């Protein structure tokens, strides 16, 4: 298991290196001279030259890449032109909000999607199944930013059930930066409820299409498993239907669901870009989108790097879970 993890991480290295090159190349394609953008039109020649030297932009590209990678190893992502702060500090401030949103959305999608899928597999062509189909087929076609706006108009503006935008009225004392967790840890009940209320609509928006996918896939996987001969044998031995579904069926059907969840993580991260903008959620994606508009290339590179890396790591994690769920998967 540990060997597998190490080997898998080594396999990831070329991808990560490629990712670095890709993002670097993309960031250096930016025309219109980032230096001029950063210093403004009033800058003198000397100022520009000094700034270029400071950023290392006067050196050849491979040297710049080396410098950039060396900086990365020191945890230095450069300075953001837009916020005039270290990109690393910006990311540290904005990342927790995104992590909180994406994680709750993933939990909601899996915890509702899997049981829903199982129910419609166990009772095919009943109202449960039809309902899940009714939600699932259009579910994947929904543009999330539009769902967000609909929920905002309906539930927040009209009915006033939830806050319209933002993450909290009052932030709890910061420990991890995840408001729900921090509020729970400090025993701050009102802050917890407040954060939860703010979280409901963004989470729902982000989770809904994913939930639909998870439900449909679980259904397909479960139907496939329930038809296998060994299920018939279990039935013949008098294993209770409940035990058959949850213990024998689910265990076998879960592998393909896991694959989907791994890929889904990427979908959630990128859709967070849209959802965060709709709900003015102070997360990494909103920061990244603003950075793109401002051509703040250090920040763009930093955000893309964090998103890419977390996506790569999520896939490694899914590979590890395979073995846990399905003992037939060997790690060597």
């Amino acid at each position, binding site marked *: 298991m540990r060997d597998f993890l190490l080997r898998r991480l080594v396999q990831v290295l070329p991808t990560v290196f490629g990712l670095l090159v890709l993002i670097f190349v993309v960031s250096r394609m930016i025309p219109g001279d980032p230096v001029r953008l950063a210093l403004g039109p009033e800058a003198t020649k000397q100022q520009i030259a000094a700034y270029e030297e400071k950023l290392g932009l006067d050196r050849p590209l491979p040297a710049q890449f080396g410098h950039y990678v060396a900086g990365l190893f020191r945890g230095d992502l450069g300075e953001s032109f837009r916020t005039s702060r270290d990109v690393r500090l910006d990311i540290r401030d904005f990342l927790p909000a995104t992590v909180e949103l994406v994680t709750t959305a993933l939990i909601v999608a899996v915890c509702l999607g899997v049981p829903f899928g199982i129910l419609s597999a166990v009772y095919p062509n009943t109202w449960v199944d039809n309902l899940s189909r009714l939600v699932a087929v259009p579910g994947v076609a929904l543009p999330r*930013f539009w769902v967000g706006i609909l929920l905002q108009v309906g539930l927040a503006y009209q009915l006033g059930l939830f806050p319209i935008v933002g993450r909290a009225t009052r932030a709890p004392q910061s420990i991890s930066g995840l408001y729900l967790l921090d509020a729970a840890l400090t025993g701050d009940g009102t802050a917890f409820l407040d954060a939860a209320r703010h979280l409901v609509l963004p989470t729902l928006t982000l989770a809904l299409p994913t939930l639909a996918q998870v439900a449909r896939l679980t259904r397909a996987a479960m139907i496939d498993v329930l038809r296998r001969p060994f299920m018939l044998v279990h039935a013949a031995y008098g294993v209770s239907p409940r035990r058959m579904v949850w213990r024998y069926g689910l265990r076998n059907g879960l592998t393909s669901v896991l694959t989907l969840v791994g890929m889904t993580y990427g979908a959630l991260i990128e859709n967070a870009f849209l959802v965060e903008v709709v709900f003015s959620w102070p997360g990494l994606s909103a920061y990244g989108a603003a950075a793109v508009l401002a051509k703040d290339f250090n920040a763009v590179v930093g955000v893309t790097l964090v998103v890419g890396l977390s996506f790569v790591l999520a896939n490694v994690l899914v590979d590890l879970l395979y073995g846990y769920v399905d003992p037939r998967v060997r790690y060597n």
Partner: protein
Amino acid sequence: MSIPASATTELPGLHAAARRRRPARWVRRFLRNPLSAAGATIVALLVGCALIPGLLAPFPGDAGPSVHFDRASRPPGAVHWFGTDEVGRDIFSRTVYGARVSLALVVAVLGIALGVGVPLGLVAGYWNGHWSSAGIMRVTDVFLSVPPLALALAVTAAFRPDLWSAMLAISFTWWPWFTRLVYGEVLSRREEPYVEAARALGQHDAVVLIREILPNVVSPVVVKATLDVSFVILLGSGLAFLGVGAQEPTPDWGAMVARGRTFLPNNWWMSTMPGLAIFVAVMGFNLLGDALRDALDVWGQ
């Protein structure tokens, strides 16, 4: 985004029984399903909107930067089905013209992605084991390791925000999917007897690749491209929504949603109506893609 969820909703082998590829049969099977017919109708309507928007839109002049303050911010009604925006342009007309923007984006992106991705996949699959194949597939892996919207967003930073840069940025993220698909298909095809026979006859590698292998790769590629249309529409409208895609006064659905958002909650129609168009378009292409996949039964094997 990226996994065609629909690809997983049907059980494999369900249609295996009826898999003789006579055109009449698959056309009939295709039309029998009401959902496929609905999908085909929606797509036909969209194509109609894209080709002759001037005939379908009640206020064709409103696609551009025109201003009619006398009828600004009207809610949906008999004259303006989707209402009017803050400068009085008919939102329904703009939505009709928006189909042209969306489909142009799709055609450009899929054209570039197919043009780049398919040849690379053919080469990588046919000369598997050669260093160039390994190189192509590693580069593909790198591109696939960033979620498309994040990568496209990073790429648009390099350009002025407009429709063209959105097209380029999405194409930039899209070709690897086709490379990987074609690579896999070619790997499984190239060992087949007819390929060996062609080689034994002394055919040039390029001829074998194009005459013998390529035709067998076409149908999965077509199905993937059809299913991809909806993802490209979603991605494109997402970029426009974030402000890095098409700009005012181009009637792009995503940009219209973003602009209308400023006037929430009172003028709710300004952003919900164009959003509805995105939903219907994506739904139509999804249904059509599913139907094509079942009819051609590419992944049912």
